[in-house]
């Protein structure tokens, strides 16, 4: 079980405020989607929640514990992150990269045990990356790298996972595979999943709860059908697309020429 609460969070890069005074919670058992246009602060929120970016003001708590009560390693046992464009060393093998996920569970003098190798093997099986195990990162495609990083976060065996655009390099088949896996982890195993998605239709399909951001503030929050409405989409993204209803769920499709 993991619950992250962000309270009156303000995030700043230099003199540029990217997120202004927002509060929200991400809970176990429901997939929370962060959506919004480019530069609305989604990735900054992921960085702040994983404590890579210190907030200008406001606080974040993990199961009620504040930042000072959790060490970097303890947090890494609770929360795993799949970054947007993960930079990986090209001379390491995929297996070695997935093995890095075991780091927070190991002490300074410890080597990985056969249990750790078994966890890594299973994580690579779940993400269908086991055939890549001995290949070097430099030889892999963008989509394969993304899958390897997802395997790494599974090997980390955390209570919660934050994903920043995990499907941006994947074809539609792999997109649904990855998100189905996350849905399974969330609904069946009670993990906390927070995911940044650009594709509104994927978000509508997979998220139980959506947070729509614009210019660093929350515009709408709630079930997908409450968030993805024609009014909200027009306010946030402009008039370049239209919202339809397919099988009772909203679907957003682009309309050529309508933004001119």
């Amino acid at each position: 079980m993991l619950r992250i609460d962000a309270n009156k969070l303000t995030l700043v890069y230099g003199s540029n405020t990217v997120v202004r005074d927002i509060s929200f919670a991400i809970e176990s058992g429901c997939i929370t989607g962060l959506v919004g246009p480019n530069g609305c602060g989604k990735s900054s929120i992921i960085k702040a929640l994983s404590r890579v970016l210190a907030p200008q003001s406001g606080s974040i708590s993990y199961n009620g514990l504040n930042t000072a009560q959790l060490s970097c390693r303890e947090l890494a046992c609770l929360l795993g992150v799949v970054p947007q464009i993960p930079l990986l060393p090209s001379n390491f093998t995929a297996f070695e990269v997935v093995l890095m996920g075991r780091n927070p569970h190991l002490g300074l003098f410890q080597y990985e045990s056969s249990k750790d190798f078994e966890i890594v093997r299973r994580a690579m099986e779940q993400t269908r990356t086991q055939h890549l195990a001995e290949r070097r990162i430099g030889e892999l495609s963008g989509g394969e790298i993304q899958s390897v990083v997802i395997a790494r976060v599974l090997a980390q065996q955390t209570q919660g996972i934050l994903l920043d655009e995990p499907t941006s390099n994947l074809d539609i088949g792999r997109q649904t595979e990855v998100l189905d896996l996350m849905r399974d982890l969330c609904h069946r195993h009670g993990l906390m999943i927070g995911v940044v998605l650009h594709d509104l239709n994927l978000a509508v399909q997979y998220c139980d709860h959506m947070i729509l951001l614009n210019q660093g503030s929350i515009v709408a929050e709630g079930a997908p059908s409450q968030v993805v409405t024609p009014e909200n989409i027009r306010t946030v993204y402009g008039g370049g697309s239209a919202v339809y209803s397919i099988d009772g769920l909203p679907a957003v499709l682009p309309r050529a020429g309508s933004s001119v």
Partner: protein
Amino acid sequence: MRFISRIRAKAMPVGPTYRHSHVLSLVLLLGILLLVIVLATSVGSVKIPMGQIWRILLNKLPWVNFVSDWSAGTQTIVLNLRLPRVLLAGTVGMALSVAGATYQGLFRNPLADAYLIGVAQGAALGAVIGFLVPVAGVAYVYGLIPSFAFTGAMLSVLVVYGLARVGKTLPMSTLILAGVALGALLGAVVSYLTLTSGGNTARGILFWLSGSFNLVQWRELHIVFPVVFAGSLMIMLFGRSLNIMQLDEEQAQQLGVYVERIKIILLVIATLITAAAVSFVGIIGFVGIIIPHIVRLIWGPDYRFLLPLSMVCGAIFLILADLLARTLMAPAEIPIGVITALAGAPFFLYLLRRKARMLF
């Protein structure tokens, strides 16, 4: 389909397999190191048979007692002249290789070594000042130049650190830029002081700058070896962290690595062992870059093996290089930096052509 995935799973490396071969390589290399030490001790102006060297060395152990069939002079040559020199060469090779591997890992830069962040230039300037200090008529005060060199190295990294620090973090790119700039500045001062010093002092400085194990005694080894060995062991504790720091710093932190703390610890230790090594024998370039890369090309990038394997390979390499330096043109000595570049570069280039993908 499930059957196929099971077969594939079996074919996956389960970690320990490649580890066993790495540990085996390490043991073999330690054996080679021992042989190289004995070989280098036996070769010189007076050729001493290897068997005799073994017996002289083993006789030092309390429970071994060979009947001496060698002269007291031979014993002096082996124990007081050659062995300390050979062991110091090994220690320095070890220090430069481990420090080089650490700098490369910290900066995620294949060219990183003690030159890149100004440590070597700081040591050089310290030594040059040591040469120029007029000490009441005494030409050479023991420990004067090494202590100046050591201070210079540590001071320069302190300055670079102070310049590069941004708030609470230490961005590695700023550190490299500050190091390169300071290094250039110090290098210019060294050149100026060397050129204007004139005569014998200038020759002494130039000889020091290109590195030499001439006139080495046990007392140098007693200072350098403990520092280098303890420092190397401490760096090795951070092998897994260094692996993860090859990702970017954000990912490393998200995987539970205390990035800022480890950067400072490793920077301090790597600089300390480099400074300890170069302050006695002068600047020996190239070892810190070439040895870790050769190890990467043969055994892969995992720092938990890269560090110990670099240590042993560096020791072997520098002992052999010093052997060539003192025998090729005997009785004259060739600066060891010349040998390391001449012998190491072609081998490195050969490996580079064959397995470049395994590099950085």
